[in-house]
């Protein structure tokens, strides 16, 4: 369950950053991304999938969340 910091890059894409793993990549898809909820399965640029229970209301980025391996 790594702590993941999610922030927006200059282009407005979400960046998925795990400091301990030296991993930083853009978020390609988010399972639930509506005005009410954000979360579920998240796929990032290198193809790996991560899971977080949907959060409602959606968090304000940047923020640190705890993800599970999806």
């Amino acid at each position, binding site marked *: 369950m790594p702590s993941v*910091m999610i*922030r927006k890059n200059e282009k407005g894409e979400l960046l998925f*950053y795990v*400091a301990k793993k*030296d*991993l*930083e*990549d853009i978020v390609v898809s988010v399972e639930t991304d509506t005005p009410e909820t954000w979360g579920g399965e998240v796929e990032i*640029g*290198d193809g790996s999938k991560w899971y977080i229970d949907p959060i409602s209301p959606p968090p304000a980025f*940047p*923020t*640190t969340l705890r993800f599970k391996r999806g």
Partner: protein
Amino acid sequence: MSNMTREETQSLIEEVLEVYPEKAKKIREAHLTVNDHTIEQSKKCIKSNRKSVPGAMTIRGCAYAGSKGVVWGPIKDMIHVSHGPVGCGQYSRAGRRNYYVGTTGINTYGTMNFTSDFQEKDIVFGGDKKLAKLLQEVETLFPLNKGTTIQSECPIGLIGDDIEAVAKAQNKETGKTIVPVRCEGFRGVSQSLGHHIANDAVRDWALDKRDNDDTFVTTDYDVAILGDYNIGGDAWASRILLEEMGLRVVAQWSGDGSISEMELTPKVKLNLLHCYRSMNYISRHMEEKYGIPWMEYNFFGPTKIEESLRKIAEFFDDSIKEGAERVIAKYKAEYQAVIDKYRPRLEGKKVMLYIGGLRPRHVIGAYEDLGMEVVGTGYEFGHNDDYDRTIKEVGDATLIYDDVTGYEFEEFVKKVKPDLIGSGVKEKYIFQKMGIPFRQMHSWDYSGPYHGYDGFAIFARDMDMTLNNPCWDNLTPPWHKDSKAEAIAAE
């Protein structure tokens, strides 16, 4: 760009790897690559931030070096206690030339060495009592200090001392910031983890001290310089440019910085990040907690300075944008004169770099402004994200090496034959004896500053002074002169 093709560079890497035993070869192979602009992410072509191969000569430092030497050390009005045996502090004392204003020993302590000088009995019975006594002595002897950091050396972690408890007790007594830093040298693979630990210590023990205090009058143009260590006066040369364009520099991290500046940083509007490697952690934290955006900039060489100034101005209103243009125009004549003077003398020369932090990619622009070309570059302790950024900066088919060993570097130099090498003091004398011009690029070879327009003039002069020095022709001993018609080095 380089006169070596991709195939030639690749075969050079294979040739150099030939001497290693099977296992070491396999490990080292992953750390050497030929730059390829088509690759987006460095992890596909190079491995970094891994443990060095035992037996191979690396020039990396330790976590203590990253914390005490790099991040915390330059904070001038705090006392940095090297907690443990005497050597670590003494041998790293004042070597980095991070200049500061103040009276050493009275209100600033940058070049002094404070250590708890561990003895056998401290290892056996624990050193917490000694540390507590030391902190009290420091308070008596240097009453104007603004706080203390306890920089742990290896034994502290091994014997399990509770330095946090001592720090808290002392803080209760004096009310000053006492920061215990768990930067024992054995942690991690290089100084890079030390930067991270130091950043986390700043976050946990120092940064939030003035969160509920609004007495500091802020303006819309407040910025902080992060990751500039004022080597030879670098931060000052950067600071004047920012101030001339209308910004107010509230804090310098950490060259010529103070604990009070650190505490005020959460109140700025923008964090300017020069050394990404050592300060990105705290920038990310401030972005999350205080909503302060951060941006990377590069103040080496006029082309990059111009780009950076405009990029910084984008965050502010028109008055700053005008200010940026004004600054660029103001210095144009000055830097053009420098280029006109030195470019003809340096044009077309090849440079190989092997440094740490931000320089393997940041100084490339400055060399290119002088018409020079970087034919090889590498980081001592870079991570993937550093290489991601480097791929875009250097030419296609350029040699890139991570945590290069002494042997590999020497062989690369023999084959690539650069006109100038920029690396650390541990390589300096090897290459000078080989007759190759060398600049020590960690602390600017006792020169500097190299940042900003002022620094560029000094940079150009230094490179010319080294490269075109007549001494390089005289390095071949007389008994070799007959058999060898010419010397290896440049003119």
